[in-house]
């Protein structure tokens, strides 16, 4: 097949999910964050850190943050999300993660509250941009759950999600395959962020009705935004939900299945019924969970973090014919300024040689691209072009 057919990126990705032959190993990247997309697309005239971190702006945001959020912060984040997609396209990825994320409010110049119940710090990223970092749960009691002021209007979020992706699909069509996510982050991780990791086990025992209501709310949000994405022309839903740490799953796999499995099964069934595919991103060592995820019906799995204990080659043997594997390229060292280009090329060759045969593999950084030089991504993409053509022929 080599040299005979050149597929468009979307075709390459979809065929990979379907286990069909493709011209070369496809590529994917999760969110390209500010430092890297500024490098690719050009820096803004005024860095947003400067816009937000001055006495005048801080005074205004402290006083009117929630009122201004809808008109300043949310549109700004949406522009950022669009830039992430554009940067992936400019770099030449076959596919990227798109997220539409206006489900938050800014309560003051340093604080962001997610509609799903968690509080984040607004912070500089060290490169002149603002970013956010988890601070604490927003809901620590039944009373706070009942009175949380920001629960989302799900139908409105779904509608806005549709509008965003319709624009993205009009812009990129099949030139790049957007794996889209709606406003909701994963059901499980949203729960952990909202009530606090340490509180989850106790609440599962003592406040089960609240846990059930929360999961139902997230399920509805994920379901409706997923359908909105598919209506907008997106073909693949990518849901992020970190079920594991470096040391393994947070909970027993059986408990994860009992709590979150029914919701995910319903969402995935709905996506399939609309002709879409479903990818789950989960960081950490998910080795004990892959069977569970596959039983939910996922079409693809993303991450396989090299820094966790996941053995991606063993997973290929165990599940490579049941699910499309996406990831494998580390961002902690390999794609940073500290590595050499040769190391990147060598790793790409190793991954293609080990995971390419048989298909159903998409090479990708294992996580969002924060503080990664664009050059390293180009090296990864070039190496994939050079060595990833089928049939794989790497000694």
């Amino acid at each position, binding site marked *: 097949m080599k040299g005979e057919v050149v597929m468009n990126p979307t075709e390459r990705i979809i065929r990979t999910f379907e286990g069909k032959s493709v011209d070369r190993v496809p590529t994917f990247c999760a969110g390209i964050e500010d430092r890297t997309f500024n490098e690719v697309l050009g820096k803004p005239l005024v860095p947003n850190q400067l816009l937000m971190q001055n006495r005048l702006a801080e005074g205004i945001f402290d006083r009117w943050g929630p009122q201004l959020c809808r008109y300043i912060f949310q549109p700004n984040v949406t522009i950022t999300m669009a830039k992430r997609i554009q940067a992936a396209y400019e770099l030449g990825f076959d596919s990227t993660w798109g997220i539409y994320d206006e489900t938050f409010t800014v309560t003051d110049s340093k604080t962001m509250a997610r509609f799903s119940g968690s509080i984040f*710090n607004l912070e500089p990223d*060290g490169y002149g941009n603002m970013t956010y*970092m*988890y*601070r*604490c749960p927003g809901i620590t009691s039944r009373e706070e759950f009942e009175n949380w002021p920001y629960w989302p209007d799900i139908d409105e979020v779904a509608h806005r999600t549709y509008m965003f992706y319709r624009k993205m699909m009009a812009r990129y069509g099949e030139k790049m395959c957007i794996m889209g996510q709606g406003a909701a982050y994963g059901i499980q991780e949203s729960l952990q962020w909202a009530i*606090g*990791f*340490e509180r*989850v*086990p*106790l609440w599962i*025992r*003592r406040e089960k009705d609240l846990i059930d209501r929360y999961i139902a709310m997230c399920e509805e949000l994920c379901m409706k935004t997923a359908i909105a994405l598919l209506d907008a022309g997106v073909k693949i839903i990518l849901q992020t939900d970190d079920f594991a*740490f*470096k*040391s*393994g*799953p*947070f*909970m*027993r796999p059986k*408990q994860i299945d009992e709590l979150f499995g029914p919701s995910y099964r319903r969402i995935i069934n709905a996506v399939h019924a609309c002709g879409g595919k479903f990818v789950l991103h989960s960081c950490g060592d998910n080795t*004990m969970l892959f069977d569970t995820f596959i039983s939910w019906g996922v079409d693809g799995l993303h991450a396989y973090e090299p820094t966790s204990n996941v053995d991606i080659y063993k997973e290929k043997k165990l599940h490579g014919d049941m699910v499309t594997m996406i990831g494998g390229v580390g961002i*902690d060292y390999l794609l940073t300024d500290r590595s050499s280009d040769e190391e990147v090329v060598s790793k790409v060759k190793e991954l293609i040689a080990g995971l390419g045969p048989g298909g159903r593999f998409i090479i990708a950084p294992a996580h969002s691209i924060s503080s990664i030089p664009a050059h390293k991504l180009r090296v990864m993409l070039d190496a994939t072009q050079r060595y990833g053509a089928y049939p794989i022929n790497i000694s």
Partner: protein
Amino acid sequence: MKGSIQEVRNAVVDLEIDEIRDLVRTCMEQGIQPFEIIEEGFSKGLEIVGERFENGEYFLADLIMAGEVIKEAMPLLQEKMNPADAARRGKVILATVEGDIHEIGKNIVGLILSANGYEVIDLGVDVSASRIIDTAKSTGARLVGLSALLSTMVGSIRNVVDAAADAGLKDSMQIVIGGACTSDELKREMGADAYGETAIDALKIFNALSDEMMRPS
């Protein structure tokens, strides 16, 4: 060991939070001293939970739940204990280092240490070296646990080590590090005294350090 203490231990191991208070009350009615309930029931139970965690049978959520089980019954015992017994293993300062705001791991370690007889002084997140040293001076605590998730903030560990040296506390203070970006190698690089990968590691390390400190010289 009396059967009722064995039941307390089993309740900790089986994460039976709804039964633990009654079981502890039964022990107390039988005249068993609070200290014995803590040692033989709680701590031994937690040891088994730790073993199950290490061999992959239990997960982080179970570890947290075991701490909650103990927390549930601890007030019953504290009413009958003198404060020295409640903090018999000594004081530990816990903090997420300056520049880092991640505290999940630190909180879990705090829960486990509290359940094991430590008085935990939790300074929270983004804590400066000077605040840690000031707290050590004012409370007399010489065990310090530092948590760091962000690799960009590991220098803050060094700041605490240096500040302890500047304050003349380096020889008496033991600094233990943990968190996603930490390692044994980083411990050596930063001049810390110990590194723990999990909450159970942290407990073992603090127990060893506490035993060492309490040993008559």
